[in-house]
């Protein structure tokens, strides 16, 4: 087997979701290392784009021949391109690059992620109701998600989006925003945050307020506590979730190794591994919740 020196660059854990992503990244690396001696992993985290650019340079200095990179955002493209042009087998994941400078791209489906959610929510409210959104940190993925929510909801005249304010993917800030919404809007039917941390924060604000008007709280990305809630079904306000699987970070390790060794997955007739892999965003309800519950995640 070809000896692979794999550099893995991710954004730092600044939100609950990223912590889980990192957990899976490490798990993926550990699992592969266990079954294959010809692998070496160099793993780095960045707090901002500049640091990430530095990280990638440092990895190249250490002579990697495979690069897995979860770009902070598309602005890191040109740095990734340098690695790719240098003949390093490059796998880009999640947030895309602004041009093709990779051998394989693996990602979650940001549009599907919030489309699924919005559709479900609309259906529950039988296409009529007032919803408030709590956004993440202003940045491209957040924009995509929010746009999609608005587009999808726009199909149904009855669905009104009252407001959309940033909670920066933080429980405490989402809680503040929700407290303020509750003062501002006397009738809310549902709260959609597309993130479980923020959803839990909002939910708590609602509970504290003692109001009874809201029917649904929808987060996203399957935080283990939320999935548990859904499984137990004791919390009528939280009945569904949408996957945004953080285990993509584990999957991507396999993709990179297979790809770098010129192999493909079982059942593919092609020699080469697919150039773009988009993971489905699945709706999680009480029926299927159990299969999305990972108690070991942070």
């Amino acid at each position, binding site marked *: 087997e070809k000896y692979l020196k794999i550099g893995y660059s991710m954004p730092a854990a600044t939100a609950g979701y990223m912590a889980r992503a990192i957990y899976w990244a490490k798990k993926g690396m550990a699992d592969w290392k266990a079954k294959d001696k010809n692998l070496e992993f160099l793993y780095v985290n960045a707090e901002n784009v500049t640091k990430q650019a530095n990280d990638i340079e440092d990895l190249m200095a250490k002579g990697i021949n495979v690069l897995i990179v979860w770009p902070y955002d598309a602005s890191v493209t040109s740095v990734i391109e340098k690695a790719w042009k240098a003949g390093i087998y490059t796998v880009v994941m999640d947030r895309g690059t602004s041009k093709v400078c990779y051998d394989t791209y693996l990602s979650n489906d940001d549009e599907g992620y919030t489309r699924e959610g919005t559709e479900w929510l609309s259906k529950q409210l039988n296409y009529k109701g007032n919803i408030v959104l709590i956004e993440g940190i202003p940045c491209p993925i957040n924009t995509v998600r929010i746009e999609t929510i608005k587009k999808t909801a726009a199909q149904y005249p009855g669905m009104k989006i009252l407001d*959309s304010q940033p909670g920066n993917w933080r429980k405490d800030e989402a809680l503040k925003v929700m407290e303020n919404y509750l*003062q501002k809007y006397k009738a809310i039917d549902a709260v959609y945050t597309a993130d479980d*941390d923020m959803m839990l924060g909002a939910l708590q604000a609602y509970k504290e307020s003692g109001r009874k008007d809201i029917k649904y709280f929808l987060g996203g990305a399957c935080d283990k506590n939320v999935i548990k809630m859904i499984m137990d079904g004791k919390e009528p306000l939280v009945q569904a979730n949408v996957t945004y699987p953080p285990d993509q970070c584990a999957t991507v390790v396999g993709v990179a190794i297979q790809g770098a060794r010129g192999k493909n997955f079982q059942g593919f007739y092609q020699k080469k591994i697919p150039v773009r892999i988009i993971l489905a965003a699945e709706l999680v309800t009480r029926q299927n919740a159990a299969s999305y519950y990972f108690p070991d995640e*942070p």
Partner: protein
Amino acid sequence: MKTHTLALLGKIQYEKVAPFVALAVLFVASSVLSPYFLQIQNLLNILRQVSYTGMIALGMTFVIIGGGIDLSVGSLAAFNASMGILFLNYLMGPLGNEYLAMAGGILAALLLGAFSGALNGFLITKGKIAPFIVTLGSMAIFRSLALFIGSAGEIRSVSNYYGTFGMESILFVPVPVFAMVILTVLLSLVLNNTAYGRYLCAVGSNLRVAVFSAIKVNKIKFITYTLCGLITSVSAVMLSSRFNAVSTSNLGMGFELDAIAAVIIGGTPLTGGRGTVWGTVMGAIILGIINNMLNMLGVSPYLQGTVKGLVIIGAVYIQAQKS
């Protein structure tokens, strides 16, 4: 002569009331701009929202009066609250009794807080290292320790009551607000009526004179950072109780800036030597109202920063002028 004195006092006084003036202006503006602002519940919300950084800002006030700075408060909060909860969870087993375990956890968090602060103080006094550097370093250290023990995720407490006491109200006043008020009263007493308070100002306004005046400069500094660590932990405990958990990756993120901002908006100069505890509270509330209004007026997420920046500058401008 009389008039003279009054005039001079007057001059000194304005400094003290300036933050209140700024707050008043903002308050009136807000109530005009948004019909929701004046709702009792909304005002209570604002108070509770600011109480957490508010408390920290109180500790920061002392640090800054003493001529120092503490950037580590945010991560210190995350780390100590995490440890507190871990200890609580651990105690649940042997002790069984939820309340005892809770008491233990909280006590641990507070002690550790004081200790962490003391560590800063030690490096600054004995190590002769600039406060900015020491606390910049410990900011990174505490955060990373928190991330490590919680692998960047959440640390939940197994006790349910822990998750409630921080949300309760004592005669309509939320507990953390209550805590902030009590702390404010205590600290302003300490600052204005004890030898320690007097020495703190002396140290901050002219270290050399303080030394020549036989003041134990290092001791004063040490106490101050310890105190700041302790108070920060009080806030951290309240905050973690709110969620019955600590998000190790982002609890306390950016608190240092909010706290320092509150202190300065409150009229305490970054150069130290003097300052007011009540002013700091006003500063914190000013910041709280700004955030509240951004939501109430539904300012576009992209432009919120602009508005916030302008209002902060404006609030201080009001004070800067007449004084």
